């Protein structure tokens, strides 16, 4: 294992110190491992918090700032944060208009956020609404599993619901916007290589040089199938067609198309993939209204990518275009 670390045990804390040093506009609560918008709580604005296991950076801490999240909780690598962290984050961002919890659909994350909401309700009476993100079409038999996983749509939810909150809309409406994004977004991912969790020191799974895993999860969970490595245009087809067969994308205002890097794939390959994806969409009569290309929800040093398509309408596009100022996503400011 070759990594830029001092000690796996201090990885999260060391990285949080780096975030604090690089982004003085953010506050970092090192004890609770919470990254908070510097001017939080913003009076009268719904607070947005998220969080999850570390290793998916820039998600979530890189999306803290005006127009997106108010706070993010960092768990151990690939392990949900604990309720104390979410309670601290909720308290830090409560501006009197309630707090939205954005939760990726993993058993641990859902239960820890649930407990946090119960603790907040018992202690302070802050109104909390949780929205669970589950956009991964790779999980087919959702009745007999923990359900679809939360992946790429999480980034879009944080941006779009963040813009709705910034407009001063009430908690119920901000939650509704978040649910709408989740309802109309689908994702599918692919791994060319495994990731290596620093504490484990070896690859999470074995993947031969000539094979790739289609339908991979962001923690290296197994996908739908393992196939020989293929040209990018065929890979794009493997990712886009299960999405299009899961949701009817025709008849709207086009899609927000998001090609995400898993951590170790260079941007030049992601742009090449984006080209393949747009060509497939054009063939299916689906216009691309907006785009996002880059490593935004990663899986440590995994090579590969995921595609997320969000069926857009006027409201979603307007909120997508709204100004945002965070370490990882910044425009219109």
């Amino acid at each position, binding site marked *: 294992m070759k990594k830029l670390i001092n000690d796996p045990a201090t990885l999260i804390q060391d990285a949080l110190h780096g975030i604090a040093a690089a982004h003085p506009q953010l506050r970092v609560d090192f004890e609770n491992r919470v990254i908070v918008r510097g001017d939080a709580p913003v009076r009268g604005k719904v607070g947005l918090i998220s969080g999850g296991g570390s290793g998916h950076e820039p998600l979530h801490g890189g999306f803290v700032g005006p127009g997106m999240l108010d706070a993010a909780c960092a768990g*151990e690598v*690939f*392990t949900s944060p604990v309720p104390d962290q979410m309670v601290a984050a909720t308290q830090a961002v409560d501006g009197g208009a309630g707090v939205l919890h954005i939760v990726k659909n993993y058993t641990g994350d859902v239960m820890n956020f*649930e407990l946090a909401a119960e603790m907040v309700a018992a202690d302070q009476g802050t109104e909390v609404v949780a929205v669970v993100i589950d956009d991964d079409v790779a999980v087919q038999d959702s009745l*007999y599993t923990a359900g679809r996983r939360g992946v790429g749509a999480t980034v879009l939810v944080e941006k779009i619901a963040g813009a709705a909150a910034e407009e001063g809309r009430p908690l119920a409406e901000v939650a509704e916007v978040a649910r709408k994004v989740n309802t109309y977004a689908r994702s599918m991912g692919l791994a060319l290589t495994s990731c290596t969790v620093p504490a484990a020191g070896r690859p999470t799974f074995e993947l031969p040089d000539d094979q790739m895993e289609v339908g991979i999860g962001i923690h290296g969970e197994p996908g739908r199938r393992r196939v020989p490595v293929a040209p990018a245009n065929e890979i794009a087809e493997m990712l886009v067609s299960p999405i299009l067969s899961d949701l009817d994308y025709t008849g709207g205002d086009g899609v927000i198309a998001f090609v995400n890097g898993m951590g170790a794939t260079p941007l030049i390959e992601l742009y090449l993939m984006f080209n393949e994806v747009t060509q497939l969409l054009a063939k299916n009569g689906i216009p691309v209204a907006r785009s996002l290309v880059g490593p935004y929800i990663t899986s440590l040093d995994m090579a590969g990518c995921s595609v997320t398509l969000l069926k857009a309408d006027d409201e979603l596009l307007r909120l997508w275009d709204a100004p945002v100022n965070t370490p990882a996503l910044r425009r219109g400011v």
Partner: protein
Amino acid sequence: MDTKDLTAWIREFAGLVAQHKDELTALDSAIGDGDHGVNMDRGLTAVVAALEAEPPDSPSALFKKVGMTLISKVGGASGPLYGTAFLRMAAAADSVLDGAGFAKVLRSGLDGVVARGKAQPGDKTMVDALGPAVDALDAALASGAGTKAALQAAADAAEQGREATIPLVARKGRASYLGERSAGHPDPGATSVTLLMQAAASTLGS
């Protein structure tokens, strides 16, 4: 059994988990994310330290401290599940427990796990060991067994429940993404529950 006896049970559980940490982690590596042993050991080490720093004065206070500490320190899914179990046990506990009182407390813990995790028997989770253990404890006490013998029956039932998870296909948690590939391995949560019940059989009842 009083606060002191029940504290000994928790300490024994912590000791067994520390002893089997690598085994729990290996089981979890096969079908989960490979951190059950490490996470439970971290949580129970914190529990033992908290109980030493401020010894609780009632079974209820003991269980509450255990539950809150596990929720704060374990993370993942086991933190909320074990934590909720102990918090429910705290709410159900009288100041001194006889066998039947302990059985009632344990059933409250099981109810908490089911409420939090929404697992059904056969989903390949800790419920598959804890459910049979609680049922066996009730049945043994009802048939007139002494507390010690009844707890041994409960520990045996937990072990059998754990063994029975081996052929099952997981329907909850991260293992469920494996589908058929999750069969052939015991559930790590059911395994740690077996340690909890073994600790009860060796420390409680006389």
